């Protein structure tokens, strides 16, 4: 029988360390088209990107059931150019719709790496933000952005379709300003992400070269 660890409310030191850990990794410095630097062509392309979001919905957790409601007649996400994509190769946006177990995280990372730049991630609900009600679960990660760069978080448990659409609109705004799409940042910061990922995924069997 292993020793039972006593755990309480984090100390201020722990909080400080956590704040360092959770410093935003993907700043605008890593991005290729900032609002200031983007030219006319990039502006037009961003307009197209903004209005054409092919979604690969990684249906984890309870948010998966919100996606059909968002896509179909009642809330009709297609009027924003949002459309389902069958495979990550065709997709622009990945939706993480709820808690992520460590087992799923491995697959999610792979799906993210198979998407083509520029690619965006939208995380649903408190579980993806800070673990939510699974904060002390042994197999559910607590903060998604330690493992993947997230563009938009949608709060709620679960967010209703209105909130989901709000999240998409926010993403469109970010795309328009050139503040979304962290594929390049992910690549440049790969060491940090890999360290975090490998801490959770014990048996790391990804190919050595980064597949994106």
């Amino acid at each position, binding site marked *: 029988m292993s020793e039972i660890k006593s755990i309480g409310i984090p100390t201020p030191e722990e909080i400080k360390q956590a704040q360092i850990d959770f410093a935003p990794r993907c700043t605008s410095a890593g991005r290729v088209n900032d609002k200031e630097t983007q030219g006319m062509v990039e502006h037009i392309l961003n307009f197209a990107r903004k209005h054409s979001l092919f979604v690969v919905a990684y249906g984890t957790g309870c948010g998966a059931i919100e996606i059909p409601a968002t896509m179909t007649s009642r809330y009709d996400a297609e009027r924003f150019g949002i459309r389902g994509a069958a495979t990550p*190769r065709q997709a622009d946006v990945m939706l993480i719709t709820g808690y992520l177990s460590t087992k799923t995280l491995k697959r999610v990372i792979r799906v993210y790496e198979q998407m083509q730049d520029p690619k965006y991630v939208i995380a649903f609900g408190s579980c993806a933000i800070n673990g939510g009600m699974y904060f002390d679960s042994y197999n559910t990660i607590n903060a998604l952005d330690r493992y993947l760069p997230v563009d938009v978080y949608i709060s709620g448990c679960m967010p209703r379709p209105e909130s989901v659409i709000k999240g998409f609109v926010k993403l469109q705004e970010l795309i328009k300003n050139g503040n979304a799409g962290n594929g390049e940042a992910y690549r440049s910061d790969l060491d940090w992400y890999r360290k975090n990922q490998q801490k959770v995924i014990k048996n790391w069997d990804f190919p050595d070269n980064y597949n994106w």
Partner: protein
Amino acid sequence: MEGIFIKILGAFLTAILAFVVGMLYGGLRRKVIARAQNRVGPPIHQNFLDLMKLQAKRTNIAHGFMGHMAPVWIIIAAMTVLMFIPILHGNLWFENLTMKGDLIFLLYMMVFGSLGMALGAGQSGNPNSAMGVSRGLAQLVGFEIPFFLALIALMIQFNTTSIAVLMDHQEATGRWIIVDNPFAFIAALLASLGMFRYAPFDIVGAPAELASGPRSEFGGKYLGTMMTGGAVFAFIKLVMYVDLFLGGAGNNNLEGLAGTALGLVELLVKTFLLYMIPVFIGLVTPRFRTEQAIQFFWKWPTFFGILAIVWALYKNGTIG
């Protein structure tokens, strides 16, 4: 020299027209489906945005040479067929190489793209792609039979294998072939449902079960180029049907630009109305399994095709 210049310019104009109309029809289809489902739906120009976005992807993946070439085959097939189909009847700009190829050639050229793409999909190594190709080829054998029967009916009724001559005939008599041989039209129309691969014949790229089938490993510029080819192909099929059965377009007496414009409007109206048939059928139908689809094509459409041949022989005076 001037003739060649006009030909080349005309080819470009035709290509642009086919591209724009095809893309717009695709958008229109999405809009129609959305309205039928009581949704607002995407704007009509949505497909242009999708295409632009796909071409603007910063990274791309190809699974080797055939994978890289897959969209090229589609573009080749689309452009070649486009050049041999009369867009406007007797119009200098939209005539292209109409008299230089006949229906048998077009029939074979139209499968060229699918076969090329199938090869590209095959190289990706994704089992879903191969499965989609297997279904697609099987379905192809299904709908080609009634389509071919309809074409034979036309050929023997009017003693020509050239699409341009068929159009001449329709203009000369002032009667559309849909009146002359309605069964051929029915057979070809039912075959066109399979050709468009909308529901109920969309098992080839069913997103939910095959991960979009042959396209599952293509993204970015490859998918974008495929979309372009697909849009042009949709236009080609429509124009071909209009030319064969609905009298074609551009049979007006106006000269110059006005005549061309009127012809184009006529073409758009006819193709649009024709396009709505598979779209609306697709709206309200579920999905056939592959063998069901094949058996469907070998039943009623083939029956109508044979009826069309009998009708053609009767009209021709060979029998009866």
